Structures are given as structure tokens and as C-alpha cells.
């Protein structure tokens, strides 16, 4: 038998190439959409871990709490009857954000502030060991309390948008059509708008500059009249509420349960480190990269290996560019 006879007949090869292109574009689109939401999640953690240098293992669990709060606003507290199933999920997500801002504010005031900020600035490791243990404890309490209160059933915010799609195409004759899930697309656009707004606040306003100064040099920030502990509290609460908002935006597409935080906290830390510590925009691109790698890897790997693909890629970046994709080496000299 000659080699040529083993391959598919000529006509079949013509058919498969557009399908391959379609699959790649489809995965890329899914990656961009999920990546934008991951990016928002990572930006929340970047405020806390990247900028304030506070280790928060409970970030994913605060996000889980945000998802449940959004769920209850939607299903039980009148958002669905009032705003309908189309706008309702987004209204609910935006209502959950301020609630989690409050949760973050008080968690910082009563717990986190005892192991961070000016109190530990002079200590070895800047209080990181205590933060690790404290936030791990908070994570366990949130997980188990949620299980007691909400039960271990998987729930989701139901909207017709999550099962409908816009179709791009047909492109390239009739061969290629890309499906864009409506719920994901709207969540991605909302994420981008929120990040743009936050970048303006952090970059241009007095509050933003005060936050960055407090992160750069807490003592010097005190000398110029900034209440550093208060700045840290605002940054912590803001970081929690932004991640919670991202959780609310994910809720229509990704059913959740009390232990879902762990899956996301790993993605968040990988994204923040990938983007470069201390950079808000970097954290966004870190999250985006993870979304794209995760979705694209599904083309060649079984679904169970999607998260492994993220970490292989993560290790590669950390090996080749230890300061992260967007980290500046001169920062924090």
C-alpha cells in the first residue's frame, strides 16, 4: 500500500480545513469572553495582593459569597420580577458589589488590619504568615457557613441569554460561523467597562494616587498626610467588591456551590502573577491570557486537562519572564 492512500481523500481535506479554522476562532472567541471576566476577577485581587501586598486566600470565597448574594437578589429579593430575566442578572451582580464592599470593609477593619498595613510594615515578611493563616481561616468559615446556609446544591442564575447566541458569519463563503454566547458577551463588555472605569479612578483621582502611594511606601504616605490604614481598607473592600461583581457576571453561565471559590482563587493568583505584581492593567491581561489558554487548550486536550494547560503556560511565563507580562523591574526598588 502506498503512503498516499492512507490519508483522507482529497475532497475531505478541503472540508476539514474550514472546520478547523472555525473551531479555532470559536475557541478564541470563547477565550476572549471568559478572559475578560477572569480579567475583572484578577483586577480585584490585584488591588489586594498586587498593590497592597496582602495575601488573601479567601478571595475566591468572597467571590462565591458575591455569587450567592447576586443569586438571592435575582431570585428572592425582587430583581427578576422587576427587571426581568434579561437585565435582572446584571442588576443583581451590580447590587452584590456594594454588599461585598461592606463585607470587605468590615473584614478588613476587624480582622485583616490586625495583620497588615502599618502595623506589620516593620516586621519580617510584612505579616504575610499571619495573613496566610487568617485568610485561610476566613475561607474555611465562609465555605462551611455557606454550606450550612445555602446547602450544597449547585445553583445558577437562570437567564435565556446563557443559552442563546449571536452568530457571526457566515464568513469565507458559507464555511465559517462563530457563535457568541449572549450572556458571556454582555458579561465581557460589562467587565471591560468596569475595568476602564477603575483604571481611570486609580490612575487619575486623588483617591487612586493615595492608594498607590500607600502601597509604595506606607511611612512616607503617612508623612504627607494619608491615613494609610484607611487607604488599605478602601483598597481591600474595593478589591473584594470587584471580584464579587465578576462572580455575579459569571453566575448565569457557571453554576456554583459553596466550594467554588477554590477553583477561581487559583486562576486569580495565576492571573495577577502572570500580569506582573502591582499592575492593574497587567492583572487584567493576566486574566485574559488565562481565559484564552484555557479555552484554546480544549481544542487539543481533553476538558479535564484545561486547568493543567493554564499552569504549564503559567510556569513557562514565570520561567521566561519572572516579573510577569507587564511587571516593571524598576518598581519597588
Amino acid at each position, binding site marked *: 500500500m502506498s503512503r498516499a492512500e492512507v490519508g483522507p481523500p482529497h475532497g475531505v481535506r478541503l472540508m476539514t480545513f474550514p472546520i478547523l479554522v472555525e473551531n479555532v476562532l470559536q475557541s478564541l472567541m470563547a477565550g476572549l469572553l471568559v478572559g475578560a471576566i477572569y480579567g475583572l476577577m484578577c483586577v480585584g485581587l490585584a488591588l489586594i495582593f498586587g498593590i497592597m501586598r496582602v495575601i488573601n486566600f479567601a478571595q475566591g470565597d468572597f467571590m462565591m459569597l458575591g455569587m450567592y448574594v447576586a443569586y438571592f437578589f435575582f431570585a428572592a429579593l425582587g430583581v427578576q420580577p422587576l427587571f426581568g430575566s434579561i437585565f435582572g442578572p446584571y442588576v443583581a451582580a451590580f447590587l452584590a458589589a456594594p454588599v461585598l464592599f461592606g463585607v470587605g470593609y468590615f473584614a478588613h477593619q476587624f480582622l485583616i488590619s490586625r495583620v497588615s498595613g502599618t502595623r506589620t510594615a516593620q516586621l519580617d515578611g510584612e505579616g504575610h504568615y499571619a495573613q496566610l493563616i487568617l485568610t485561610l481561616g476566613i475561607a474555611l468559615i465562609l465555605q462551611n457557613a455557606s454550606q450550612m446556609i445555602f446547602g450544597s446544591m449547585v445553583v445558577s442564575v437562570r437567564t435565556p441569554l446563557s443559552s442563546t447566541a449571536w452568530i457571526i458569519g457566515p464568513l469565507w463563503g458559507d464555511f465559517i460561523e462563530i457563535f457568541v454566547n449572549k450572556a458571556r458577551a454582555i458579561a465581557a463588555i460589562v467587565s471591560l467597562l468596569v475595568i476602564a472605569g477603575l483604571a481611570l479612578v486609580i490612575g487619575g483621582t486623588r483617591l487612586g494616587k493615595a492608594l*498607590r502611594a500607600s502601597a509604595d511606601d506606607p511611612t512616607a504616605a*503617612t508623612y*504627607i*498626610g494619608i491615613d494609610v490604614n484607611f487607604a488599605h481598607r478602601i483598597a481591600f473592600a474595593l478589591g473584594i467588591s470587584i471580584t464579587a461583581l465578576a462572580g455575579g457576571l459569571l453566575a448565569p453561565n457557571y453554576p456554583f456551590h459553596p466550594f467554588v471559590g477554590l477553583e477561581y482563587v487559583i486562576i486569580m493568583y495565576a492571573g495577577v502573577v502572570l500580569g506582573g505584581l502591582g499592575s492593574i492593567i497587567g492583572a487584567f491581561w493576566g486574566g485574559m491570557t488565562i481565559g484564552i489558554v484555557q479555552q484554546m487548550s480544549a481544542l487539543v486536550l481533553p476538558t479535564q486537562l484545561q486547568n493543567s494547560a493554564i499552569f504549564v503556560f503559567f510556569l513557562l511565563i514565570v520561567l521566561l519572564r519572572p516579573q510577569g507580562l507587564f511587571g516593571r523591574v524598576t518598581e519597588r526598588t
Partner: protein
Amino acid sequence: MLEIAGISAGYSSVPVLRDVSITVAEGQFVSVVGPNGAGKSTLFRTISGILKPSAGAIRFEGNDLLALPASRRAHLGIAHVPEGRHVFPSLTVMENLELGAFTEAGRQNWKTNIDRILGLFPVLSERRRQFAGTLSGGEQQMLAIGRGLASSPKLLMLDEPSMGLAPTIADFIFDQLTEIRRQTRLTILLVEQRVAEALQTADHGYVLEAGRVVLEGDNQTLRANDRIRAAYLGM
């Protein structure tokens, strides 16, 4: 304006300052000189509230400073330019200066102040968009002083502004300090190891050794003192 009465302070249980009293009158230029480890920076950290004294009192324009949290003290009109500059490295030069004007007075007088600061240190104007962490040591020192001036302070506290700088740059910075004084009659409290320069420009001086004030007096008295001449001025 600033009265420090019988301050004792230190880290953990080791006292660094023992019963130190220093007075700065309005419009005065006061220098505190002394060797390494005499407690000069500890004195400044106590005035700024980073360190709580174990005894004594500090009053600023009649206010009890020790009753106020550290972050409120800048708003009273005290600008602390710390040892080692401590500019905000990941913020631009301009953002550093803008943050200097975090106080109410600084915001109100921003226009006048920024013109004066960039006039004194033109290099900051050239580097306004650069990250402060990328500046040279001398430029960072100028930025730190500029940040202090941007708050429209009543009292400017300078901790070793010449530390680690080339002599010509240190001279330039001292010249500009004299210029600031000439323009504004700003009250200045300076801590220095460059004793000759520090005493030359000052109205009044204190010598701090091992946490105690061992000598004080006006410029002429101190420079005529045999001990000062031998130990610090090399004469």
C-alpha cells in the same frame, strides 16, 4: 512654633532619645547636628508620630501633637522630608508632587507652589512624566523636598538631605534651601551630618550625642565652641 519638652523615645525597650528638649520659633532655621546613631532620625520620627515617645510633650502652634494620629500631623502644616528620600517609586514625578499637596493648604496654593518648586529644581520639570524610582539619588532628594514644599507647610523638617549625594549636588540642594528661606521665610528644622553647612545656614543649633542634647546655641556661639571646632569642623 514647635516645642519639644523632655522627650524620651526608642525602639522596643531601648531608649534612643533621653529627655530631649528643642524649641523652634516661627521663621527660624534650626539645625540638629550629631554623629550617626545620636537619635536624630528618631527625633523626627517622634515628631511625625511614627514613633510614640515614652515621656515628654510636643506642641505645635499650641496643639498637643501627641494626641493626634500621625496622618493628621501633615495637615497641621508639618512636612517631613525623610532620610533616604522615600519618594513613591512607581508614581511619576508629577504624581509625587501632586500627592505632596494632599493637605488642604497644599491644594489651595498648588499653582504658586508648583511654580516655585519647578523653579528651584528645574530638573523635576524635565522629568515630570518619569517614574520617581528611575531618578538619580540627587533628583530623588529634590523631589522629596519638592513634595514637602507642595504641602504648603508651616514647618519643613529635613532629615539628612545631603546623605549619599555627590558634594556638588549636596551644595546645590543647600543653596536652594537658602533660596527657599529667602523667598518665603519658611520655618525649617534640619538634621545633618554635614555640620559646617548645617550650622552656617542655621539661626540656632543643637548638638545631639547618644540621645541627649549636649550643646545648644546660636550659629556664632556653636561655631566658636572649641569642642564643635575640634569634633565636627576639623579645626
